[in-house]
C-alpha cells in the first residue's frame, strides 16, 4: 500500500474473499486506499505494516468470535481507529445485540454494526460518518 497522505485508508477483514474483492473494488473507486486480510493473523500483520484510518471486520472467521477478538486487539493497540463490524450472525443465531444500548456498546467495542448482506452505500455512509474526509490528512499533519 502506498502511503498517499490524502487518501483515507481502510482495512477490510473477512474470510469470504469475494466479499473482500467486491468491497475493495468499490472503495477504491470511491477514492479509498484499501488493504485486505482473510483472518486474524493476516489482519494483525496488516495493522502492524500500515495502520489504517478505519477497520471493517467480519465477526465469524477462523473462529466464531474472531471479529470481537480483533476488535479488542485494535482497541488496545490503536484505540483511535474506528471499527465497523459487519456480520450475519444477528439474523442467523437470533443472538440479539445492537449498538443502541449502553451495555452492548460496552462489550462490543465497535463504532458501528452492519448486518450482512450489506449494500455498498450503507458501508460508505458509515465510513463517511466515522471518518470525515479531512481525518487522514489531519492525522498525518499531527
Amino acid at each position, binding site marked *: 500500500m502506498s502511503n498517499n497522505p490524502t487518501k483515507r485508508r481502510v482495512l477490510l477483514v473477512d*474470510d*469470504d*474473499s*469475494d*466479499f473482500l*474483492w*467486491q468491497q475493495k*473494488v*468499490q472503495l477504491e*473507486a470511491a477514492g479509498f486506499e484499501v488493504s485486505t486480510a*482473510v*483472518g486474524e*493473523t*493476516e489482519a494483525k500483520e496488516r495493522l502492524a505494516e500500515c495502520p489504517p484510518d478505519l477497520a471493517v471486520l467480519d465477526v*465469524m*472467521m*477462523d473462529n466464531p468470535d474472531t471479529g470481537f477478538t480483533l476488535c479488542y486487539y485494535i482497541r488496545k493497540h490503536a484505540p483511535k481507529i474506528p471499527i465497523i463490524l459487519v456480520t*450475519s450472525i444477528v439474523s*442467523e*443465531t437470533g443472538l440479539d445485540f445492537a449498538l443502541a444500548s449502553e451495555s452492548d456498546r460496552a462489550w462490543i467495542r465497535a463504532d458501528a454494526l452492519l448486518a*450482512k*448482506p450489506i*449494500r*455498498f452505500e450503507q458501508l460508505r455512509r458509515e465510513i463517511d460518518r466515522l471518518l470525515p474526509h479531512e481525518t487522514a490528512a489531519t492525522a498525518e499533519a499531527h
Partner: protein
Amino acid sequence: MDILRVLVTDDELGMRLGVVRTLRGFTVRVPDVEEVIGFEVEEAENGEAALEIIRRSPPQILFLDHKMPGISGLEVLEATRDLQSEMLTIMITAYASIETAVQATKSGAYDFLAKPFTPDELRNTIRKAATRLALAKQARKLAEEKRQVRFQFIRVLGHELKAPLNAVEGYLRMLQEGQLGEKLSAYTEAVDRSLVRIEGMRKLVADLLDVTHIESGQRQRSLESVDVVQIAGRVLETFAPDAAARKIDIVLNAPGPVRLTADRGEIEMILNNLISNAVKYNRDGGRVDVQLAHQSERVTISVSDTGIGLATEEAARLFGEFVRIRNDKTRNILGSGLGLSIVKKLASLYGGDATVVSEAGAGSTFTVTLNDQPTAASASPARTLPGDSSPRADCENPAVA
C-alpha cells in the same frame, strides 16, 4: 437423588399411614439411567381433596382408592385424564373385579394394587412406576438434545447457504450498477467467481441430500459383494482431468480385487469424498496414493496426499459437520464442510471408523476401515429410545386379594 411426589388418596387413615411408613427412606435405583429415586408422600382423605391437590400441582404418582365417600376413585381418574402431566395413577381396589379394572384402564390408570397388600407389594408397584417415570424423563432429555443438535445444524446450514448467495448478489449488483469500470478483466472475474460460488452451493446441496439420506435410515441399502478396487478405479477417472491440470499423480495400490459386502453407492461416496479432498488440498505437482487392503474381516481404504496438511488440534474436529479449516491456504478451496462427516457416518454403518494422520505442510493420510459383514444392527442408524412402550403395555391384571 431425584424425589418423586406421591399422593395417597384413601378414606382409611390406616391405609394412608401404611403407605407413608413403607415409603419412608425407600429408594429405587434405575441402572439404565444411573438414577436413584426417593419419595415424598402427601395424603388426601377423599376424592375432592385429591383433585384440589392435583389441580394445584400434580404429583408424579397417585395412589387412588376406588371406593370412597363422595366422588369415587374412577371419577377422580376421569377428571384428571385430560391433565397435561406425567402423573401415573395406581388404583387401590378392595374387590378387584375385572369390570373395575377394565374401566380404570380405559380411563388411563397405570397399575393396580389389591387390598390388602404387603409392604413388598407396595414397594414393587412403586418401583415399576418410578422406573417408568425415570425412563420417560430420559427419553424426553434425549429427544430435546437431538432437537438442539438439529437446530444448530440448520442455523449453520443457513449461514453456509447465504454466504454464496450474498457473494453472487454482490457481483450482480456491481454489474447492474456499472461499478466495474472499463477493464474487461474485472467483468470476467465477477462472472467466474459467481459461477464458482454457485458450483460450491450446488455441491453443498448435494452433500446435504447425502447426509439426509444416510441419517433418515429409510434409504434402501442394497448390500452385495463389490470390488472396492474396481469402484476406486472408476472414481479416480472422474478426478483425472482436475488432477492432470495441476500435475498431480494419483496412484492406486491394491493386492488384487478387494471384495466387500457393501452398498456400492456408499463405497463410491466414501472414495469420492476422500479422493476429492486429496486433490483439492494438494499442491501442484503433488501425489495422491490410494491404498486398498483386505485383512481378515476388514477392508481398509487409505488415501494419502502431499498437500497442506493440518495441525493436530484441527484434525480432532475435522469429521464434524460444517467443519472447514479456515486459513489463507484454504480460502480459495471450495468445500461444503460436510464431506468428511459423511465419510464418518458411512464408516459407522459398517461398524468401522474414519481417522486422519497429518503433518502441517507435508500432507495427510485418511484411513477408513469397514467391516465385511455389516450386521443388521449396525446397518440401521435409527435407535430406539428407552421408555417408548405405551403405558398400557405395562399394565398388569389386578391381582385378587
